[in-house]
């Protein structure tokens, strides 16, 4: 793909923030991103923003400046942030703008997502089937049966997330938990316990992008976007909130988005130095390691046992604590991953900095109703 650079990043702390609206958190992220690259809102030639429960993103201009810029709202489930980024990239590549901003924020009610059925005929939710948590329990249960992944491995993923989250001042959950505490917490959706699941939460992220050949005007440390791909499900893939699935098998949108992104970037999984993978729950991180091409199905058991996905491991995964430690404000979550990777590539990740000067970083989001977004960044 032709070159686009990320020159400024901003984030509002993830977590629970009583009295601060989702939109306020988006505005804070925008101001921090502008400050990061020394720009003004009036310098932005376009904006793309999204939120599921936080209101229409474009209405924030009444607070940050009525400059008349074109502002596109995007809503694309869990891939909302990733889609905002992809649209910003497309805008720059098309020549419609040289400098713009991608924004994601959200604020959800407490507890599992409330999913309403179509058009008032809600047999699905009425019957007790409209819970995303059930899908994740069923997908990893089948996967463990097929590929020999064990429950202690899921607990390892959880403990790693909270250990990394404790090193991240922007994270929601900053208390390390042992593998035993993760394994022995309340069973929510077998085989997944309370601390193996992320929670819907709050937060905001913004990033400023420009044509790569102009990046040095705004920062001395630009990060280049080598790929941004979004894919939806094909026939035969096993997806969240599906009353039925086909017997025919498709590997799903994550594999498709990953392949497309690697092709765009002209590199392979072996070239990636740090990865942020959708960890809606601990099993998702395990499955997504293979679906994104970083290992064969079943190898995760040994990789986790060897500590290969730790910050100082061969392939650090979810260095900021992932969704497990940060929670999942839908609109912001995908951009949170990119934010973390920019910090890692700049060498600004502090106590959780991946050693040995990482050069290539990978993000992956997955969500309902079967959508996945992948980005690849490099210095």
């Amino acid at each position, binding site marked *: 793909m032709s070159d686009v650079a990320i020159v400024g990043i901003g984030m509002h702390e993830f977590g629970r923030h009583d009295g601060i609206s989702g939109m306020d958190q988006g505005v804070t992220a925008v101001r921090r991103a502008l400050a990061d690259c020394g720009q003004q809102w009036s310098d932005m030639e376009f904006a793309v923003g999204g939120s599921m429960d936080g209101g229409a993103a474009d209405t924030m201009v009444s607070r940050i400046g009525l400059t008349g810029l074109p502002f596109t709202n995007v809503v694309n489930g869990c891939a909302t942030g990733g889609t905002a980024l992809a649209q910003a990239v497309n805008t720059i590549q098309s020549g419609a703008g040289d400098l713009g901003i991608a924004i994601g924020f959200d604020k959800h009610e407490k507890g599992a997502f409330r999913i309403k059925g179509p058009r008032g005929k*809600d*047999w699905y*939710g009425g019957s*007790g*089937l*409209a819970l995303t948590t059930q899908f994740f*329990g069923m997908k990893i249960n089948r996967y463990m049966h097929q590929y020999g992944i064990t429950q202690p491995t899921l607990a390892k993923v959880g403990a790693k997330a909270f250990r990394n989250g404790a090193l991240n001042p922007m994270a929601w959950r900053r208390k390390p938990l042992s593998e035993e505490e993760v394994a022995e917490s309340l069973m929510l959706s077998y085989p997944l316990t309370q601390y193996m699941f992320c929670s819907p939460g709050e937060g905001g992220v913004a990033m400023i992008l420009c044509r790569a050949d102009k990046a040095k005007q705004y920062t001395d440390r630009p990060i280049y976007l080598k790929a941004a791909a979004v894919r939806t499900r094909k026939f035969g893939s096993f997806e969240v909130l599906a009353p*039925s*699935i086909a*017997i025919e098998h498709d590997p799903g949108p994550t594999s498709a988005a990953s392949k497309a992104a690697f092709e765009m970037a002209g590199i392979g999984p072996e070239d990636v130095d740090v990865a942020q993978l959708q960890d809606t729950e601990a099993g998702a991180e395990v499955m997504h390691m293979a679906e994104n091409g970083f290992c064969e199905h079943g190898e995760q058991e040994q990789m986790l046992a060897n500590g290969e996905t730790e910050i100082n491991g061969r392939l650090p995964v979810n260095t900021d604590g992932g969704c497990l430690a940060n929670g999942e404000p839908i609109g912001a979550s995908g951009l949170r991953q990119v934010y973390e990777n920019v910090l890692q590539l700049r060498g600004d990740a502090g106590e959780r900095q991946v050693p040995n000067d990482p050069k290539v970083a990978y993000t992956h989001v997955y969500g309902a109703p079967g959508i996945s977004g992948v980005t690849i960044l490099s210095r």
Partner: protein
Amino acid sequence: MTTIVAVADGIFEIRDGKPVLLGTRCTNCGNHMFPRQTGCPRCLFNEQEDVELATAGTLWTWTVQAFPPKAPPYLGPVGDDFTPYGVGYVELPDQLRVEGRLTVADPEQLKIGMPMELVLEPLSLDEDGNQIVTYAFAPVDNGDQS
């Protein structure tokens, strides 16, 4: 006597006290769909016929819903009256895999590959005192529980 009513029309019929799932079959490629829909996501053909799906199959995967779902939309008992229930996909041979509640919620009693059959599951009473039911899958009784 309490009247039994289905949680919604068009999802299943009740026959001899058991549910029969209402599906669609693509007349071009034979793909089965549930619930009924127009348009085949497999071959993109737009002519389908209504069919009744198989009433038994094998358990493909499962979990246990251990906390009460939010109500609405959930119609079953919540709060102190909530009891955990199983959820799974049952593969109906040569048709498709259907998601549904399971009558068993004990992980020790659920095994991938076990034979399952359709039964009715009570949810709650409606405002007229009718018993609202949905469909569920129960382990097939092999008659060996003397």
